[in-house]
């Protein structure tokens, strides 16, 4: 129908595949998120650590560069599991700030504008709506975690040889799996906060609070109650323990990987419950 033919007509053409419909939501949300200057700045800054790491890996394998810089190879930081863990943690920090800015508003904008009945009144389930929103964060988070880390791992593998790759396969898989653990956790918590709090400032403060104030609370709990259980409130320590176990490097002394995984799983489950309760097509008057 041309624009001038102003009449209503039923659509009888082909439809897109239903199982990928959530990607429409992800596409539009991603377009919106990357318009933000703050997101772009965070993405640019997130390249710094991998770039430095890439240079370090390159220097390690370039005798000419070492000679020019007059650096004895034994004085360089070794390219091993701890090196990759250090860079990965820097990338987790980048993902944290990315999710802080982008994730905490993804659902609240729809709640503020009462758009949920429009989304859920279409052939789109609550789970698909959440998956669409989460996909935005997973795409952005992947771009700053396992993708650059995978490139670094590949660079080291190319320069060191295939035998190094095979010998460190668990390290590579641990980087990948650990990244997904963190991205899913950060993503679910960011979305849950976004669904629970409509004011952006309050949502961002809560996101910081769960991760940073949680750690402080755990510290105070340890000091005052003379216990070590407070570490279960320190999400960063819990993540460290799980990621170390996945990468197969020296385990954390503060908390075991199983306890850490359970605590992180509990946090993720709470986030899912909040999302299930808050993301509805109608408001519930209690």
């Amino acid at each position: 129908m041309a624009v001038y033919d102003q009449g209503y007509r039923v659509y009888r053409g082909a439809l897109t595949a239903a199982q990928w419909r959530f990607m429409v939501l992800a596409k539009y949300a991603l377009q919106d998120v990357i318009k933000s200057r703050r997101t772009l700045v965070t993405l640019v800054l997130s390249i710094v650590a991998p770039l430095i790491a890439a240079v370090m890996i390159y220097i390690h394998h370039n005798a000419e560069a070492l000679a020019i810089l007059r650096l004895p190879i034994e004085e360089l930081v070794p390219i091993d599991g701890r090196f990759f863990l250090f860079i990965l943690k820097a990338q987790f920090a980048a993902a944290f700030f990315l999710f802080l800015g982008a994730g905490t508003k993804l659902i609240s904008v729809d709640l503020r504008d009462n758009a949920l009945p429009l989304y859920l009144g279409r052939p789109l389930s609550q789970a698909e709506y959440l998956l669409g929103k989460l996909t935005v964060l997973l795409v952005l988070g992947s771009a700053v975690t396992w993708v650059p880390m995978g490139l670094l791992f590949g660079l080291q593998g190319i320069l060191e040889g295939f035998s190094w790759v095979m010998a460190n396969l668990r390290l590579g898989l641990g980087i990948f799996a650990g990244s997904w653990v963190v991205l899913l956790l950060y993503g679910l918590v960011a979305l849950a906060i976004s669904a629970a709090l409509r004011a952006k400032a309050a949502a961002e403060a809560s996101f910081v609070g769960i991760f940073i104030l949680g750690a402080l609370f755990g510290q105070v709990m340890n000091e005052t109650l003379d216990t070590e259980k407070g570490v279960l409130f320190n999400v960063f320590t819990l993540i460290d323990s799980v990621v170390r176990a996945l990468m197969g490097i020296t385990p954390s002394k503060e908390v075991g990987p199983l306890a850490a995984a359970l605590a992180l799983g509990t946090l993720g489950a709470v986030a899912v419950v909040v999302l299930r309760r808050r993301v509805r097509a109608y408001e519930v008057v209690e």
Partner: protein
Amino acid sequence: MESLESRSEGATAGAEPSAASEPGSSAPVIELDGLSLRFGKVQALDQVSVALSGRAIGLLGPNGAGKTSLVHTLLGFHRPSAGRATVLGWDVARQGRELKAQVGYMPERDAFVSEMTGVHFVRLMGELSGLPPQVALERAHEMLFYVGLGEARYRKIGTYSLGMKQMAKLAQALVHGPRLIILDEPTNGLDPSGRQRMLDLITSIRDRGEARILISSHLLRDVEAVCDEVVVLKAGRVVAYRDLEAERRSNRSFLEIEVRGGRSSFAEAIAGLGCEVAVHGKRRLKVVLPEAVSVSDLYRIARDQETQVRRLIYKRDSLEDIFLQAMEVDHGSL
């Protein structure tokens, strides 16, 4: 992701829409069979049974009558606690996905994405309903022109006036070309010209005959202007149902009579002739004459009973009358 599939949404084997989804069909578009909905101790819908097949169906009732609960149930937002509801042949509890692909919904409250332009917003809604991106864009432009927002389609919706937001909500409900359009209080907050524009659009969709319309409203005049079938809800139950179109077409004679003296006995006597009689106020009666009875028969009975007929006019029930009568019914059901 861009791969296209056949028109039928979802993969329910053997599930096909009913004939009601086809233009010009007289098959029921909405069928409710003992539908009940309960929220804790609150019975929102109580054994609602009705079959609706009008081109434009009005859903009336006072606040808290269950209109929005019914609309939400038809959209699959609530799972019925008992009974069954089908829309266009789809079971709302089991085939919600297929159903929602065929339905356009305009909620009562403001609902949009304020940071998006009109065309971006309507296109998004089209794509979410399964339209390919290019088709969604084309139809978004068409629908925005159709509802009168052509010139404002590149403005952010947050900058729209209340009336423009209502029209944007209508555009998003139409963009995917649904076969049933559910409008919840479509004229809410509109000025007289905006209200008329909205009613004209609804009428034009109705008259084109490609889609059915369900209007939930408390504005009787709006419903009367565009609907050909009306259901009145009260306390979660259907207390009145009228096929306005059939009544408009029928030859039944509606009389309003004002009498003095012996009203009750007069009413009983004319009811004995086969008339339908409703007592209205202290002196008035509303009477429907069967074909075999004429007005002179009424005058004769009045003379015999020494009842004064002070006024007698031909008048069919307005929707307001139907509504007020329905509100007097306690726990009525059809």
